[in-house]
């Protein structure tokens, strides 16, 4: 019984069914563990790690310099920026928008810098459904290579106050 004290000697050998299941469970556990490590070698989607400390003011400065340098147009007051293939790109998160609109080339790799100027935000790239956390004070460097052309929406998925549901942005991927 589970509610009474066990007999004095309770550490008896396991039954056959139990042994089978414990061994299977252990193998599955080790497999899942190794799978994550192996994906770092074999898979193309791995969690970014490169991070620098940065103040919101410095990040805003760097991002605005970037926008001024590579701006190619405007959409309802939002800058449209085409960074050089293989180079750095900046995305500012703040209450309540992602700026600028980025124009990327399919198959090219970019060093995308993510940081927030105020609260915590969440970067969610749709419809692909790729999600990353953005914190103020941290420059999160994401090496990203778009593999399909089209327009992608950015939505914020970390609660950031009353205008949270309006916080969106855009990435355009060209062939």
């Amino acid at each position: 019984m589970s509610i009474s004290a066990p007999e004095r000697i309770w550490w008896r050998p396991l039954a056959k069914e139990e042994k089978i299941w414990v061994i299977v469970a252990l193998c599955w556990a080790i497999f899942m563990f190794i799978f994550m490590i192996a994906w770092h070698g074999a898979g193309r989607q791995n969690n970014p790690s490169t991070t620098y400390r940065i103040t919101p003011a410095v990040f805003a400065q760097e991002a605005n310099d970037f926008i001024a340098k590579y701006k190619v147009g405007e959409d309802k007051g939002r800058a449209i920026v085409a960074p050089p293939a293989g180079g750095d790109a900046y995305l500012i998160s703040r209450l309540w928008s992602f700026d600028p609109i980025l124009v990327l080339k399919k198959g090219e790799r970019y060093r995308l810098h993510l940081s927030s100027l105020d609260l915590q935000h969440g970067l969610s790239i749709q419809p692909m459904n790729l999600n990353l956390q953005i914190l103020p004070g941290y420059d999160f460097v994401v090496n990203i290579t778009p593999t399909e052309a089209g327009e992608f929406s950015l939505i914020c998925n970390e609660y950031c106050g009353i205008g949270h549901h309006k916080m969106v942005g855009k990435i355009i991927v060209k062939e």
Partner: protein
Amino acid sequence: MDEEKKSGKMKAPGTLVLVFIFLAWFAALYFLNWSVLSRLWSIG
């Protein structure tokens, strides 16, 4: 109490079948998710 004492001779064949059904379901969902992930942009 007899069952508890006779170690090595437990009779729970139904449970063993159930847990393997569970494992099969678990593994199916697990690999389905990795296949969805493999279709994302390359990121690292």
